[in-house]
């Protein structure tokens, strides 16, 4: 009976934790599916333990316990696999961002230098002249 309570508590804790994490936006929904499933299984098994032996027998496994271990193993593996896939995607995206940031930085630097050299090229003798300024600005915008 105590073990049953303990198991039920574990299942409930997992489910509540998931609920809180999702509601606060700390966890994207797609990561929670496996955990939700694990929590539900724990809960069901705790509430009605004979179900394990029933399923185990149906699958040809002698010990109900072993079925639980297999379940846990598979769940862990799926989570790890999902994380590996996510890590690959993130690595890939970070790399693409880094490459494009580097190129853009060079382009921005070049354009700033061009604009500055153009500013420097306008004769300082006519500081308030309205005739030159619009032209200079228009060229700057094109860049």
């Amino acid at each position, binding site marked *: 009976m105590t073990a049953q309570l303990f198991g039920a508590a574990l299942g409930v804790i997992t489910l509540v934790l998931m609920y809180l994490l999702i509601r606060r936006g700390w966890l994207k929904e797609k990561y929670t599916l496996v955990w939700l499933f694990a929590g539900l299984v724990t809960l069901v098994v705790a509430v009605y333990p004979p179900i394990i032996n029933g399923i185990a027998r149906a699958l040809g496994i002698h010990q109900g316990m072993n079925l639980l271990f297999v379940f846990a193993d598979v769940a862990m593996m799926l989570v790890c696999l999902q994380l590996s896939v996510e890590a690959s995607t993130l690595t890939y995206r970070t790399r693409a961002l*880094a*490459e494009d940031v580097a190129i853009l930085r060079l382009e921005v630097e070049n354009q700033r230098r061009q604009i500055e050299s153009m500013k420097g090229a306008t004769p300082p003798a006519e500081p308030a002249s309205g005739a030159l300024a619009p032209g200079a600005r228009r060229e700057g915008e094109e860049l």
Partner: protein
Amino acid sequence: MALDDDRLLVIIPCYNESETIGAVLHEVRACLPNADVLVVDDGSTDHTRPVAIAAGARVVTLPFNLGVGGALRTGFRYAIRHGYRVALQIDGDGQHDPATAHTLLAELSGADLVIGARFADEEDDYEVGLVRRLVMRALARSVSRHSDTTLTDVTSGFRAFGPRALSLFAAHYPAEYLGDTVEALLIATRHGLKVRQVGVAMRPRQGGAASQTSARSAIHVLRLVPAFLVPARLKHELPAVEESP
């Protein structure tokens, strides 16, 4: 040669090459006076960037170290954005002699990707350790089997790229060390690009330290195994790069 009229971009991936990059840039300028030179600084922690700028190169600086493949793809994307149709990859450590670049570029008239290769003939006296030599030969054999030509040096970083190779690699270029050179060839042949090699003599690196130890190289070679076994679809489609106005 049809490619004579195309603008050439020389891409030099660099990681902490401040000792040698100045001399390399000087040499490139002397041998290829009409080419534009792009140094891709792969997150160097030394003075590679200022030295290269002082030597008159355009320098693209990656925010952190991506590995040669990342540096190269940056170069390819830059090339496409700025309308270059031909690119030459050359190392920043001085082991490639830019004077031999012309033979690579000439070969591009009948190929999409040309490798400047060591071991192309028997007299080549480029020094590498026995293990390394065996591994390199095995890799070369494996890649050659996928290709329509015999390649002797698939890890060479001295390469010329034609327009088709540029646009393919601007979107898909593997990042891993060694992976980048070998896997890129597999990608190229799977996409029907014509790969050729010309024999070139290489010099020992002129200064600085190699970025990889042999133990790490071994790991990288192992990582290549899936690349040969699984003819993977190209993962992660990148939007095609367009020429910037």
